[in-house]
């Protein structure tokens, strides 16, 4: 992780908005995210949380305003390998097993030091389901298989869209634990969620989407 500009925040949005058919989807947003911070994106259904996260991930282009990554305007290659995105669609191939899916992800992103696929799968609570095709997993098990990427892949900024949905209580605690150790290690995360989620470490920064 080479920071070009150590004082600048990791991610900074200035009057950011996204346009669909020339209409902004949400009111202009201003926020900063520093290393070690966790931001909770809040808003009602349809307020634009998913849209915001997809824009940060580089899937949608910035409509108006500005987005800066370590002080530089955000471009595709300047943050390559530093951002991990998990959307409503999990990005798992249903015909492959969790193990195979993770191997592909590691092939594309490179692996974290010392994180083996089997160990990660065991940690995420899929022991015994490593070699079952994903399509045969229950909804929560699929979600866990997708979340295992967080443990396996190296990244500075996590963009998680409703990571708690479909998880049981153990799973929710697990995600909270992951987020805590990620921010402790100097990473940052943006999370959208509706449920009554209690974080262990202090109060997260909140970004409210206004309609």
């Amino acid at each position, binding site marked *: *992780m080479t920071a070009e500009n150590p004082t600048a925040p990791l991610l900074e949005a200035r009057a950011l908005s996204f346009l*669909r058919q020339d209409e902004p989807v949400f009111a202009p947003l201003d926020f900063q995210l520093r290393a070690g911070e966790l931001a909770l994106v809040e808003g009602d259904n349809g307020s634009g949380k998913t849209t915001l996260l997809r824009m940060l*991930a*580089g*899937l*949608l*282009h910035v409509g108006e305003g500005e987005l800066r990554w370590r002080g530089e305007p955000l471009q595709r290659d300047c943050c*390559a*390998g*530093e*951002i*991990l*995105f998990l*959307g*409503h*669609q*999990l*990005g*798992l*191939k*249903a*015909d*492959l097993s969790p193990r*195979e899916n993770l*191997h*592909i*992800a*590691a*092939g*594309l*992103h*490179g*692996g*974290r*030091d010392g994180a083996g696929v089997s160990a990660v799968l065991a940690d995420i609570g899929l022991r015994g389901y490593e070699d079952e*095709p994903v399509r045969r997993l229950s909804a929560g098990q699929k979600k866990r298989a997708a979340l295992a990427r967080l443990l396996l892949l*190296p990244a500075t900024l996590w963009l998680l869209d409703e990571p708690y949905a479909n998880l049981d209580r153990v799973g929710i605690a697990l995600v909270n634990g992951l987020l805590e150790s990620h921010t402790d290690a100097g990473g940052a995360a943006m999370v959208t969620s509706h449920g009554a989620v209690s974080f262990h470490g202090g109060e997260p920064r909140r970004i409210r989407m206004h309609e």
Partner: protein
Amino acid sequence: MSRASLSTACAAMLRRDLTLAWRRRGDIAMPVLYALIVTMLFPFALGPEDTLLQRIAGGVVLVTVLLAMLLALDAMFSSDIEDGSLEQLVVAPQPLALMLGMKILAHWLTTALPLIVIAPLMAAMLHLPGAVIPVLLLALLLATPLLSLLGAVLVALTAGTRRSGMLLALMLLPLCVPAVIFAAGAVAAAQEGLPWLAPITWLAAALVLAVVLAPLACSAALRIALDA
């Protein structure tokens, strides 16, 4: 933390698509069976007259193989878009064009190669003279990757739209026709004992150009298609 090297990433992509194809090997076999069915139906529909069959054999095999490939083209990115894998690929820290090149290669290996393997069988079913078969295979070996590459660009362009089917067919038609003309020209020439190198050379030239440019065009098209 270790960045994934380019070759690892390429290998991972290729392995992934080949594994997936193997898991659904029934679907790979689909174009093959389709092609076989077509060649079997022709004698029924036209009557089993040897000379007639022989006369049309080369053309029928070519058209059938290319159409069978068209069938499979539509599905090149669709499942990846549905389950979000394509998003993950776009977000991954690897040159998208190269990754898509791997996907196209895997697609060609899993759909076109089996078709080329059974092409001699199809030709024999329609009583094509054995001497022409090498030329037919050469024409197919050049025409099918061309189709895969150009098709991929068009599929990527139509990925974001809902009316993909028709658009795809419409845009591919002008691309198919020259390929068929050159390939069929070579086969016909060989069948009549004339030199057949010229059309084959044209195909090869087009292929070289496509190998370089198509993946780049494909990645640009996909980024546009996903951005909504």
